[in-house]
């Protein structure tokens, strides 16, 4: 093997994923997306573009919405990571997830995990979002099926379900 392929080897990073302690091993520049999917088999987080454009890989790091395709493993040391698998409480879906089912906010479902993460994040930041807040809050998550209309309805429905007055 030529010199260029030699490596300092993999790194081990400690963090929590969905509230559980995790020890993740991989190349320091490995995408968090791949580590979640391949090491932990948390395949709910999806890859749509690999360049931070589509939001299908959205997760929370320390409560902030990020694109996990743009986060190298080395930067999640000590962080708290939450993925779509951590949104429902066991079999009890979150109000946003319920609303996505009721309003038809999910069609093919591939953008849905990321979209749900963005919607949960939006409602954490803005308790009673208006239309503009919703459009802006979800603008980093591309959907090719719905035209977004039913997703907007899902966010509104989730607010109503949790008793938030708009």
């Amino acid at each position, binding site marked *: 093997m030529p010199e260029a392929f030699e490596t300092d080897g993999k790194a081990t990073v400690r963090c929590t994923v969905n509230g559980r302690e995790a020890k993740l091993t991989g190349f320091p*520049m490995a995408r968090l997306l791949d580590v979640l999917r391949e090491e932990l088999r948390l395949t709910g987080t999806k890859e749509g573009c690999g360049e931070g454009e589509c*939001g299908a890989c959205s997760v929370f790091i320390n409560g902030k919405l*990020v694109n996990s395709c743009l986060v190298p493993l080395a*930067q999640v040391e000590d962080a708290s990571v939450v993925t779509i698998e951590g949104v429902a409480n066991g079999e009890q879906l979150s109000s946003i997830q319920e609303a996505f089912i009721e309003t038809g906010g999910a069609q093919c479902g591939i953008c849905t995990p990321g979209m749900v993460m963005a919607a949960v*994040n939006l409602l954490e930041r803005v308790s009673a979002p208006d239309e503009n807040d919703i459009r802006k809050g979800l603008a*980093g998550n591309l959907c090719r099926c719905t035209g977004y209309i039913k997703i907007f309805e899902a966010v509104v429905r989730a607010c109503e379900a949790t008793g938030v007055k708009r």
Partner: protein
Amino acid sequence: MRAYLPAYELKRPATLEEALRLLSSEPGQWKPFAGGTDLMVLLEAGKLEHRKFFSIWHLAELSGIEETPEHVTLGALTTYTELQSNATLQREFPMLCEAASLTGAIAIQNRGTIGGNIANASPAADSPPALIVYGAELELISERGVRVVPYEGFHTGYKQMQMQADELISRVRIPRHAKQWKQYYRKVGTRKAQAISKICFAAAARLEGERIEEARICMGSVAPTVVNCTKTASILSGRGVDDDTIKAAQDELRKEIAPIDDLRSTADYRLQVSLNLLKDFLLSLEL
């Protein structure tokens, strides 16, 4: 993922001192890695040529927004999200807040940093035109010490900067004299969010009665670097806004920018819309 990952390094220095030591010990070998919103895209495409990086994302010394009566100082790691939500910036530097809100979307704004944006040196970046109009300065730190340079002129060519190999951008300092200025910012992308700008136009004017006392105009995506259109701006000094003023300014702007065709737009469009935006800015002054 098209990169050969084992070939890349990403260290995690515990402190700023350690990071600076790394920079000076092997000059040019190590590069800082902040929020990763640009570098990871290159990595994914197999186009990240540099191999050795160190993360600065966790370094508290490079974070935070501070205010003095004369300046607002942004830590290099200030994210777009933090820029938008700062009350002082909203009040005095709305163009910077708007630029931040138009860069990517929420997830990018949570990771993209002002320092990273400057170091990435893209002529299409959204914040630099606003920073130049505001007369921002950069604080560069190295083991040798700290120096402050005007941001204007920092970028010398496409992706080139006046910075030594052992230096790190630590802070962005903005003088607080923009309050009285009328400000105009317009990013032209193909869509309303998540767009890379085809043209970015930032301008401000201080007015005296019916006249422009002083103007500043800075543009992105119309040349290999962000362009401070000083000649166009100087033509406006002391003038009211009428057809002659508009025409004179447009004629000057033509000479100051050098847009090109690329896969996002055409030179023709960029030039025409630049001229239109200049006119729109002048009309917005309502003189």
